């Protein structure tokens, strides 16, 4: 195993973020085990086999890192995982917008919702500049997407007012 511990003189490294995946793995494995306690052996055998290995690996990793914290070689800080840059770069806003987009698309349909999503995202990342270009790019991409995915490939992307209108106009219902 690679030694990730720094020398004694080095600044304590923040390792809190590195513990998220192993802790999530431990929590998920424990949850998984609770769902298979009263099930036939066929449902248990693979999960117990792999889950046990995962628990050993994760617990040992967490223990190693905690030991480093106790020896003063590391801190539980999150490093650059969460920082002010998440707000200034627009990452936090776009994440929130993405969640909203997923929620709204089932009613708004692909074309209209995606147009507004693209337009607002581009506007955020461009810090409000060149809005007309953002509108043109969003419009062109959405129309290309509509023609390619819905008209050509007949993909069942979420339908909304625009798709139903086009269906009535061009395909008579």
């Amino acid at each position, binding site marked *: 195993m690679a030694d990730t511990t720094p020398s004694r003189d080095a600044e304590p490294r923040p390792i809190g973020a590195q513990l998220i995946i192993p802790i999530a*793995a431990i929590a998920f494995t424990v949850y998984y085990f609770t769902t298979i306690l009263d099930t036939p052996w066929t*449902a248990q*055998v693979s999960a117990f086999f792999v889950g046990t290995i995962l628990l050993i690996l994760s617990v040992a990793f967490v223990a190693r890192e905690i030991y480093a914290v106790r020896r003063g070689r590391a801190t539980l800080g999150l490093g650059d995982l969460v920082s002010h840059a998440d707000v200034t770069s627009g990452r936090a806003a776009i994440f929130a917008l993405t969640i909203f987009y997923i929620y709204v698309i089932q009613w708004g349909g692909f074309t209209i919702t995606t147009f507004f999503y693209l337009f607002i995202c581009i506007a955020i990342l461009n810090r409000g500049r060149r809005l007309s270009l953002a509108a043109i790019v969003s419009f062109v991409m959405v129309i290309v997407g509509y023609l390619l995915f819905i008209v050509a490939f007949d*993909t069942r*992307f979420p339908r909304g007012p625009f798709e139903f209108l086009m269906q009535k106009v061009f395909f008579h219902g």
Partner: protein
Amino acid sequence: MAEIATFGHLFLHSLTFWWVIIPSVFLGMIVGALPGFSAANTIIVLLPLTLAMPVEVGLIFMIAIYCSSHMGAGIPAILVNIPGTAGAAATPLDGYPMAKKGMGQQALAISFIASCLGGLLTTVIALFAMPVLAQVGYYMHSVELIVVMLFGISLIATIASADPWKGLIAGFFGLMIGFIGSDPVYETPRATFGFLELYDGVPIIPALVGLFAVSEAFLIMEQSSIVSEEDQANITHGSWAATFEGMMMALTRWWHIVWTSIIGLIVGVIPGAGASIACFVAYQQSRSFSKTPELYTTGHPEGLIAPEAANNGVTSGTMVPLLTLGIPGGETAAIMMIVLQYHGVNFGPALFQLHPEIGYGVFTAMTATYLLMLATALPIARYMSHVTMVPIAYLVPLILAFSLLGAFVPREYMFDIGLAVVFGIIGYIARKTGYHVAAILIGVILGPLMEQYFLRALKESNGDIMVLFSSRIGNALWVALIISLFMPTILAKWRARGGAKEVALES
């Protein structure tokens, strides 16, 4: 001699269908490049058209889409770190670092050459060695397949070379996620968090989209473009010379293309294994036997050649058990089987006597497709590489919107878009903290397959775990697996000793 003349005649006959092959190649490259779309679901969508065509035209149409989609999946993997399908999941490991250095055009040329030559070579091998290759599929039972799966899992530790411990945690975490869903025997739901949509297991496409596309989009948001300003000059002044340079990089490593594509062919013959395993097996073997393993994941041409040659080697491999035994080697082969059966084609040895234009024609059509693919794809590498210069402000929203919708396509559940976001969060944290997303993905892919074979082996042996060591082929594979696990360390020590001797001699 008569056989070669027959193959030659069939090949020339296949070439006369260039008017079907060329548009199908472009369609295949597009659907391969779009996460969520694949050759399989495109052929399904176009099934009414395929069934209406004469059998020969329909077959060539499907073959061309199939082969080109494998190559197309590598394009976004190289340019924006988002593989179009799971079969290209190992391509960004070295393809994307090349693109970031402003060498996207060279990387695309390498990918196209490796894909086409790898596919071409394995097609010719499959054509002549079909009777022998068919036996590979016949002798691969549950135990042998478990060891093949473990081969895939063993790669996890070596892919994340910076800290193999993290690689193992990521891989086994992926495996546990892959076990979500009903158990294969009694359909008992496991770890589904109460969601009915997870009863069939975790769908691969939302996992792929989330781990690669969503996490990458959120990661690159702080940059102005994928390529740094200094490296942008390489693209701005890009010319045909860069494509030629990439071609030469691939052609001078012709031996690498040969043996990694043969890995793809052999993995493809094994039903159920597929391109997603082949690309990682080839990548790991390539790095193990490389003289410069330290260059892998930094934008090394050999690290790009291996997965691309292998995933195209798979295409001819999957056809072997289909044609000789009637067992499709993969999803697309299964759909082709349905179409051919609709036209009254029966599989097995008799196919080659009764309908040689179909039996051998599959491979001659593949040969023609790969040749035409090479001619059509290489000239456009120059223009495709400009994707890396698109400002992030436009690229990120497009990646997010279209890849999330790609997650929706295979099952048409809104739930799958949400699932892609959850995988995106996991992928973002993993990337920021040094856990490799490819390790998680390969775990998710292999989890259900491994469980299925593990249970089958245990059932056959009445629960005796020693069944895993009961077959000669299986035991040989175990030995190969152990050798493959320790080979990198042994070779590294051997090289270090060689280097030390040289230094001593010089001094």
